[in-house]
């Protein structure tokens, strides 16, 4: 049988490095907020002829949109992000662009006024808090029959926090080259990851409980390792099928659900990792009181 638990400190080291990387990325470059949360307009235009992006930027600056962010999305296609505009302001902007660059079509337009952005941000925070409480209640319930349910719950939550930090952190890192912004679909992805991460952990823990009942005198680390190996195929296979469909989403649809797919992709991969190497290994550390090795400054 593979000895996964024996290598627990190596995995911890990996997790710590990964988490540090994510935290540094969040602290330095941070997350870019999309119009859902910071208000503003997103205008997608398609010109019938080739137009240089510099010219579009220049013209926008002339029209009072000096801070607009312009991206090329296709041949003659541009995505312009600027401050919140009402229909009238947008219409006059379009007229001005059309006068300068010739005929074009508006593919899409979204405008979020600050009042909406504030409410969306508030509700997103409430949702994350509510999800955390809901998951905590669920964990309490799921582990009610375990010995020392508190430990199981804490380790599951540690794995969960690990996953969320990795998703948000890697999103910040990937966001630099890919120009990703946090929007509602990203929050949706993070919440879906929370659900996914916990249920992965619960299934491993469920097996630990079962094996403990069947082998009451066996060494705990051995029981955890046996349970991990027994559930490993399931974790990997379910993870793989989920990753397959997310890849299909990412490659073929992209667009508005791109942020969701990216969050979910990172989350599923780290979710598998954390349920095996973080949550269960932490359980063993707790049982054996190895905090000293994990956190050298802690006294037993």
């Amino acid at each position: 049988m593979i000895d996964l638990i024996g290598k627990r400190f190596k995995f911890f080291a990996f997790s710590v490095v990964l988490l540090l990387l994510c935290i540094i990325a969040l602290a330095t470059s941070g997350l870019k907020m999309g119009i859902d949360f910071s208000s503003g307009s997103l205008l997608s235009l398609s010109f019938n002829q080739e137009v240089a992006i510099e010219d579009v930027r220049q013209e926008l600056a002339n029209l009072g949109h000096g801070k607009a962010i312009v991206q090329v999305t296709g041949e003659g296609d541009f995505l312009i992000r600027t401050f919140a505009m009402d229909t009238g302001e947008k219409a006059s902007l379009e007229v001005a662009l059309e006068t300068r660059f010739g005929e074009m079509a508006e593919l899409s337009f979204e405008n979020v006024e600050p009042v909406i952005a504030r409410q969306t941000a508030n509700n997103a925070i409430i949702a994350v808090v509510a999800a955390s409480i809901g998951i905590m209640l669920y964990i309490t319930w799921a582990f009610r029959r375990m010995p020392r349910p508190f430990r199981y719950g804490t380790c599951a939550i540690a794995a969960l926090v690990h996953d969320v930090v990795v998703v948000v952190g890697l999103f910040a890192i990937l966001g630099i080259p890919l120009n990703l912004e946090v929007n509602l679909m990203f929050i949706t992805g993070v919440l879906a990851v929370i659900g996914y991460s916990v249920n992965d952990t619960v299934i491993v823990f469920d097996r630990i409980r079962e094996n403990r009942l069947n082998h009451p005198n066996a060494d705990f680390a051995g029981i955890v390792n046996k349970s991990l190996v027994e559930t490993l195929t399931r974790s990997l296979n379910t993870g793989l099928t989920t990753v397959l469909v997310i890849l299909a989403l990412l490659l073929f649809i992209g667009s508005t659900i791109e942020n969701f797919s990216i969050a979910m992709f990172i989350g599923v991969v780290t979710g598998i990792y954390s349920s095996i190497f973080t949550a269960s290994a932490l359980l063993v550390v707790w049982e054996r009181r190895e905090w000293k090795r994990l956190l050298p400054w802690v006294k037993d």
Partner: protein
Amino acid sequence: MRRKNVFTTLVILVIFILAALVIFPLGEGVLFSRGVELGLDLQGGLRLVYEADLSGVAEGSEEEILNGVVAVITNRINPLGVSEPQIEKQGDNRIIVSLPGLEITDVEKERIGRTALLEFRELKDTDNDGTREWVTATGEIDGEAKALNSSYFKDNTFVTVDDFNNILLIFEFNAEGAELSRQITTRLIGEQLGIFEGDEPMLGEDGRPIAPTVQSVISDRGQITGLSLNEATTLSQQLNAGRLPVPLEVIYEQTVSPTLGSDFVGLSLKAGTIGLLLVMLFMIAYYRIPGAVASLALIFYAAITLALFKLIPVTLTLAGIGGFILSIGMAVDANVLIFERIKEELQAGRTLGSAIEAGFSRAWSAIRDSNITTFIVCAILFWVGSSVAAGAPVQGFAVTLFLGVAVSMFTAIVVTRTILRLFIGSRLAGKKWLFSPFLGGNK
């Protein structure tokens, strides 16, 4: 037992056929005449969220006023010919308007939410600094200062063209309005009288504010010149029948052109099919016969879920399709859990029949527990989606993921078990390697 299982198989087959008849063809369906409803992002269209300014409204009558606003907006939208317009209240002071499939000009868009309350203003040097600004023109009735606006118009305004081809919007004041107008125009002879809508001056066809110079005292009847025929006609209609009781402000807007949306229908169909095929391929390669059975169950699952989307009906958005495709990947989790258990039971030396039964019953608690977290998340996402203006995609995602996972619990367990039981006692049953991967080492 045997007999019962054959019966269940038949029931499953019948459900499958019914589901297929509901789904196909996608446009209408043999059994169910309604097509799949597509959201804004898939068929294009317009979504607007208005916030009503209820500050001047008497307490207690807010709801009534808001209902009035909904009625007026509905009247304005009906002529646009949208097949399934949605106009609904959100919270205390918001109105959400969804017009899927509509291509609309910016001017038409602005007309939907216009107050259609015209106010007359005069130029006054209010700060005594030499510059004159537009201020509300008021008159006095019973010692009370009152603003002159179009609420004093009778409901009989009309548009006409004079001998010089000018377009005239003719209106008539009621008694109180006539008195106010008489006072104001008497005072303002030779001065300009501005016409404002909200805080914006009304613009004529030439793009300049309409602010005629008062030539003579106007009491009961007046006219507005300078509008285009189209604009004058709409305004006249709105003045007569569709004036909004309170001003509205657009706080969220989303417009998608139908051409952009139609691309996504094909792409999501492709993503769904490829996702489904990849998962099936993996399951068959890894789990062999049970994997093939799980793949059948997956097709069955997709059919039931799609049929439910049509029957409920669920408006499909890109995010909703994302939720459905994601649920395909998650739906096989139950089967994976079960098959892993079956493998263990077979390794322990059980016969195929008892291994299958034990596999299903032992995996149940894990299947139940693993879906609960998804349901919790769906419930929260549904709330977020229904409470924020831009939340339609999130709500769609929550609904389809929830339906998908719920249906998958049924198909992954009942359908897979029923079909697998058909193999018990068959010639294949002896070949355990067909039912589980990697049994060789443990023989």
